[in-house]
């Protein structure tokens, strides 16, 4: 008799706990993958596709599924570092060369108004209409370079963002020891 009672109590407990877990999984269901959103927040949102994915979100999804974290050149080495911190993976050198931040500039003399770049721009940063001159809204340009290949007259060029008083930054006060000089001093010591 006792053993039956014990089994019954355990079974009852299992049912109650199972029901509450089931309820919680419905009630507190998380929409989407929170990890993907966290990764996406680190990615620079240039939507340039240099990682091989059509936009930052797809790359974030791929990283969450195990893709390498060093395929985002606009994010730079720092982006890789932050992704590595978030995901607990090893920091890898960037899979491409890191460029300074740039924006696209249309040579308005050469532009023929074909609208191809407008269609290519992922962030709607180009204004213009068919057979009308186009121009790029500098504040909105992410420097993704996607407008360069479609241009039939090659009137778009990339220019690094100039330093102004408004975006100037104080320099790091620590003088960094360069590897070459370190190597040289090592040689001298030897």
């Amino acid at each position, binding site marked *: 008799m006792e053993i039956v009672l014990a089994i019954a109590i355990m079974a009852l407990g299992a049912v109650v706990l199972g029901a509450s877990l089931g309820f919680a999984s419905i009630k507190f269901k998380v929409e989407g993958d929170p990890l993907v959103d966290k990764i996406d927040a680190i990615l620079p949102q240039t939507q340039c596709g240099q990682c091989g994915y059509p936009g930052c979100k797809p790359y974030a999804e791929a990283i969450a599924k195990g893709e390498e974290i060093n395929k985002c050149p606009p994010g730079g080495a720092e982006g890789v570092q932050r992704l590595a911190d978030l995901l607990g993976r090893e920091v890898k050198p960037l899979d491409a060369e890191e460029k300074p931040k740039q924006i696209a500039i249309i040579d308005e003399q050469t532009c023929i108004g074909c609208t191809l770049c407008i269609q290519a721009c992922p*962030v*709607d940063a180009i204004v213009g209409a068919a057979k009308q001159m186009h121009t790029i809204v500098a504040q909105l340009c992410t420097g993704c370079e996607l407008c360069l290949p479609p241009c039939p007259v090659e009137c778009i060029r990339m220019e690094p963002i100039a330093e102004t008083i408004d975006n100037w*930054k104080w320099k790091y006060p620590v003088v960094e020891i360069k590897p070459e000089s370190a190597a040289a001093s090592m040689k001298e010591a030897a």
Partner: protein
Amino acid sequence: MLMNLFKFKGGVKPPTNKTQSVGLPIAVAPIPSRLVVPLHQSIGGTPRPVVQVGDKVLKGQLIGEADGWISAAVHAPTSGTVIAVDMQVQPHPSGLDAMSVVIEPDGQDQWIDRQPFDYTNAAPEAVREYLQQSGVVGLGGAVFPTHGKLTPSKTVPMEELVINGAECEPFITCDDLLMRERAEEVVRGVGIFRDLLKPKKVLIGIEDNKPEAAEAMRAAVQAIGEDFEVVPVPTLYPAGGAKQLIRVLTGKEVPAAKRSTDLGVQCFNVATAYTAWRAIAHGEPVVSRLVTVTGNVHTPRNYEVLIGTPMDELLDLAQPNPDTDGIIMGGPMMGFLVPERSVPVVKATNCLIAHNERLFPPKAPEMPCIRCGSCARACPHELQPFEMYWFSRAKNFGKTQEYHIFDCIECGCCSFVCPSRIPLVQYFRFAKSEIWAREREKNAADGAKTRFEFKQFREEREKAEKAEKLAKAAAAQAAKKAAEAAAAAASENTGENAAPAGEPAAPASVAVDAEKAAKMATIQAAMERAKAQRAAAQPKNTETLSAAQQKDIDDIEARRQAALSSVPPAESGEKTE
């Protein structure tokens, strides 16, 4: 008049070095050879230039229009010709350039038509706007547009108005001299601020190393009959920081991320009050300011200087010693070496110190932090500079914010006391500008993301709309076809069967026929039109010919006929072979 004063934590007592430059009265600096007036001289939006190269301007004429509410207008400091509106090197630690108006003075120094502003009968909004148009900004160093600080809080009643004449930074004496010589106008300016803010009391805080200034101010307050209190405060750097002075005079501690107005206190510099009075009572916008020229010079003194005067020309007035190797703008604690000696004096320039190695010996190399805690004891904001230093150095900016790096006023007390001579403030400035840059990047990335998502959404929507349209057209086509088929079947039926069964179908076939006929007619009409157009497009230059031309053509035609008639035999001959 005994007043209970409060204390702020920390602070340092660097050698004040103020006596050198108070011996001589204020001198008016001569008009320089050219004036470079930067447009962005205050916190907030960059004013838009409203003059062009070649324009003649008068002293006090508007040259930069305020951009937005937190922004102040910029005026021509003297009469002359605009010779450039372009990028010029700024008195800024970066050494970068910014939009400036370059004026070649004509030597007349001719004012615009100056009209006093009747502020007693004007609405407070009008007074604030007038001060904005006059370019009145905080001359204590932060250059925050003054009109932006003159709106009383709606919820908190205004308790105290604090007027800052502490001038705690070593070497600087421009506010001291201003109060000694122009106390009455300062007090009248304070009166304007009092009328706008309606505080319960007005406290003028002056460090006790300036007894002459305090005496002059007291006399002026009595002469005008105001009830302002002139309070000597203990000399302790940085007693002239707004939050520190408020603390000393009122005992109120302004919490982080709150404004002093939330506690019913507002603070203005004495020089700001003076310029506000000049603007209201004399119609003079801010085109000059007092600048202390001191340091490694022969005759240190205070000058009234036009905004835009090149610093080297101003320094030359005080005869710098030959070993001068740079100019510090501001004081030794918070100032910086200007990138070029020719950069202009701006509204924020309260002091120029001629730099040499005797006065400012080069700093000994930085040593490791020994965690002595001196910086934390010296910090007037009760921060922990050593913690912020480690995290700034490690570029762990999230942590620096946890230690409230944005409450740091960069007064330099921590660097001053550090036994390891660590340039702590430089680390904090670095961390702050990195955090700001990241913030900007983050905002840009968020904007790009929403724009990208919207573009995708729009493309999807357009695709869906197109598909819908196509589907509709296809459905219409199918319906038409079905109708035609039905009609055809019906007409066949009418053909085969005699009258009774065919009757209901007959109108349909008639309708279809009519439709067809109409279609045919339109096609016909279109073809006619095309033909007519073709005909119209025939060359028409042979219609109006002169007699001579007609004769030429006839001759040519005749020759061609002759040639044609002669050729065939030969041709036939060839063919036969």
